[in-house]
């Protein structure tokens, strides 16, 4: 379970970005985190991963406080797909990048390789295996980044804009992959159709606070609410 309890956060020399935020996400839930540019979505993910520390409030992952003491244990549970895949991949090839986490968690090389193969096959990415990270396209890099995180087999998966930069074909693959995952999922995106396909619950953020929290269909079909937050109805709900 993931819990934010009255969390406040401001970047250095900046205004408050996260404002007294509280919510809970149960095991296996799939939650879409939406909101205008600058609403604080990426910041929430970084707080959850312990990359940023809140000025006040508590963040819990399975009863473990996200803080100095249990940070490694917390991070092992969470897989994070960064908004910018260029910053996610640092090993020379896709294969080595995918092996990185399992090997760090002391899984044997054979076992890790088996995992990596499974993930590549599932995503239809075998052709990327031995490609150099600096020689693949932006969308391929995004797919590879998702693959590296799946190879970690984390308990919960956080994705920051997973479908940006993807062509419709790969976007569909990612959506289907996300749907198949049984882990807890938190996904931020401006692609509301993708959120509609993958998430059962939506949290709408506005200025670091929750503007709405409820069933996906209730929120994504509420035109006024969305438009007040710089968004539009998902394409599939728009009448031509």
């Amino acid at each position: 379970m993931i819990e934010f309890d009255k969390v406040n956060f401001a970047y250095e020399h900046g205004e408050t970005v996260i404002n007294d935020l509280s919510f809970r996400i149960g095991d296996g839930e799939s939650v879409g985190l939406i909101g205008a540019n600058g609403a604080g979505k990426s910041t929430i993910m970084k707080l959850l991963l312990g990359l940023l520390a809140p000025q006040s409030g508590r963040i819990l992952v399975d009863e473990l406080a996200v803080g100095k003491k249990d940070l490694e244990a917390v991070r092992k549970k969470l897989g994070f797909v960064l908004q910018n895949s260029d910053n996610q991949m640092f090993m020379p090839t896709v294969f080595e990048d995918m092996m990185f986490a399992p090997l760090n968690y002391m899984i044997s090389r054979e076992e890790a390789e088996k995992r990596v193969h499974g993930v590549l096959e599932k995503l239809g990415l075998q052709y990327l295996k031995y490609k150099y990270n600096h020689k693949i396209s932006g969308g391929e890099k995004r797919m590879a980044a998702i693959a590296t995180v799946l190879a970690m087999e984390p308990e919960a998966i956080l994705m920051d804009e997973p479908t940006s930069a993807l062509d419709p074909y790969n976007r569909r693959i990612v959506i289907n992959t996300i749907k198949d995952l049984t882990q807890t999922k938190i996904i931020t995106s401006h692609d509301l159709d993708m959120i509609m396909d993958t998430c059962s619950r939506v949290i709408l953020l506005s200025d670091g606070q929750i503007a709405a929290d409820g069933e996906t269909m209730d929120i994504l079909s509420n035109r006024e609410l969305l438009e007040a937050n710089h968004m539009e109805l998902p394409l599939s709900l728009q009448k031509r």
Partner: protein
Amino acid sequence: MNKMEKALAELGRMDELAMQESPVHKLNATAKLLSTVFYILTVMSFDKYDLSGIIPMLLWPVFMYQMSGINIRTCFYKLRIVLPLVMAVGIFNPLFDREPMLQIGSITISGGVISMLTLMLKGVFCLMASFLLVATTPFDSICASLRRMHVPSMLVTLLLLTYRYVGVMTEELAIMTDAYHLRAPGQKGIHVSAWGSFLGQLLLRSMDRAQELYASMLLRGYHQHFHYAYHIPFRGKDAAYLIGSCAFFVLIKWFDVSQLIGGLFV
């Protein structure tokens, strides 16, 4: 991208060379690291006037490049922006040290010229050897081997991040110069008036990215150990290679090989 930027960008891309296959690539990382360190120490230990003594030291890198299938030209090509800096070290020696040292026909060569040449060779030889190490060994394996030799993990992590940082910075540089030229058509290079802000932006952007990269390493379980690095165990042939190399350095250092060889022909 202009020439300078292209040169920088290539410097950041050593991984591909390190992934090739050759007898040298297949050697244990520690053996290669140690032999390189010994090579550099030996080269550095030569007297600054011992030009004829240091020249045979060239044989080792030449042989190793041959074995590794990496063209020596690749090294000079990739390092073409660093090379002049290394060569510039002894450039003022001829001015300060005018003592005649050598007489060839009617030309007198001063000690300053000899020491300048020796220093230049030292720099070039060491660059060649270091480049060879990085070009034949994945950088993470070098780090793993440093850790095995009990180099403090802080230092090794710093080294690894510096290496990655160079890559990130060159990428950022390429992106920024492209963006600049698109909005300053016909301009050669970057105008002096923009240097300050350009450099500042470059540093900020690359630091931001490097920080995210490091975060991404931490999030995937990096804890200053290198279990993940590709490891080739230390075998008999690695020992043989290491001992052979060192024996060769000692031979050249203690015996005047160029005179020995010269003696054969007289």
